[in-house]
C-alpha cells in the first residue's frame, strides 16, 4: 500500500517527460531509491508492473531501480562516509552522532530509454 502512491507519482512524471520530449514508446525506465527512505524497490516494481497494464504509453516498459546508499558528513571531524549500519548513524571515524545526511534520502527518476 505504501509504495502505491509513490509509484503513481513516478508514472505521472514519466508521462510528463515523455510528452515533453516526444517519446512515444518508452521501454526502459531508470530510477534511484535511497536506502534511507521508507520505500523499497520490490513493491515499486510490483505496482509499476500492475499499473502499466492499464497504461497505453507504458505497456511495454520496464523499470530498473538502483539503490543509493546512505552517505553522511560528520559535523565534528568533517569527514564523509557511507553508512555502515543502516540506522546506527554514527561517524565511523570519530563515533560522533552529530552528522548531516548527504545522500540516500531521495527517490529520483534518472533516465528514460525509448523512441
Amino acid at each position, binding site marked *: *500500500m505504501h509504495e502505491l*502512491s509513490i509509484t503513481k*507519482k513516478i508514472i505521472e512524471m514519466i508521462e510528463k517527460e515523455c510528452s515533453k520530449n516526444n517519446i512515444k514508446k518508452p521501454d526502459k525506465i531508470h530510477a534511484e531509491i535511497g536506502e*534511507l*527512505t521508507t520505500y523499497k524497490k520490490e513493491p515499486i516494481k510490483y505496482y509499476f508492473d500492475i499499473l502499466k497494464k492499464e497504461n497505453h504509453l507504458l505497456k511495454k516498459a520496464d523499470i530498473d531501480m538502483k539503490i543509493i546508499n546512505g552517505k553522511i558528513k560528520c559535523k565534528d571531524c568533517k569527514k564523509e562516509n557511507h553508512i555502515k549500519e543502516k540506522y546506527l*548513524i554514527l561517524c565511523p571515524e570519530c563515533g560522533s552522532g552529530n552528522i548531516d545526511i548527504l545522500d540516500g534520502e531521495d527517490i529520483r*527518476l*534518472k*533516465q528514460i530509454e525509448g523512441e
Partner: protein
Amino acid sequence: MSEKLDIDKSVLSENDKTAYKISEELKENKILAVNVMGSPGSGKTTFIEKISDFFNPEEIFVIQGDLESDVDKKRMEKKGIDAYQINTHGGCHLNADMIKNSLENIDLKSKNFLFIENVGNLVCPAGIRIGQHLNVVVSSTTEGSDKPKKYPVIFLNSDLVLISKYDLSDVVDFNENKYLKDIRNIKNSVKILKISKNDKKSIKECAEFINKKRRNLFNDAE
C-alpha cells in the same frame, strides 16, 4: 531509433515543494506546525488534548489524520479547539496536498500552533514532509522498549520523542536504559521527554519545549 533521455528529477520533490509552501505560509502567520507521529494507541490525541491545557484554545488548531471516522475531531472540539479531520480511506500517511487542502478550511489569524496528528503508524509518515517545523514521535512504554531498534526511521526523523504512559513503565517492564541507548544510537541530538497523562508537570515540560521552538523560529522575545 531508441534514445536515452536523461532526467534526474526528484520524485519526492513535488510533495516537498508543496510542503515548503505550507511551511512558509504558516511562518508568515507566525504559526509553528507540529507533526505528531506514533503508533495507533500510543497516545497522540491524548497528548494534544493535555498539552492544549497549557495554551489558549483559540491559539491552536489541529488537523487529524485517520483512515476513517471523525472521533478525534470531536475530541478536540469538546475542548474548544478548532479541528479538521482528514480521512485517508486506507492511505497510511498524510501528505502535503492533504494539509494544503485542510488549511483552506481554517482561519489562520490568531493562531500560534498547528498540531497535525498523522495517521497512527510507526513506518510510513516518517519520510513525508507535510510542511511541519517540528517532528514529534509519541512512543508509549506499553509498546515495548524495542521500538527504536525495530522502527528506526521515524526516530531518525524526530526532533522530540515523548515516552508516553510513563506511569505504566514498571507494570509493563519497560527497559528504559535500552530504549534510550537505542535512540541515542539512531539520533544523538533528539530531545526525549517522559510523559503521563495525569502528570501535569510532564506535559508542561512539553508545552515549554514547543513554546521555545516557536519563539526560536520567529525570534520572538514575547
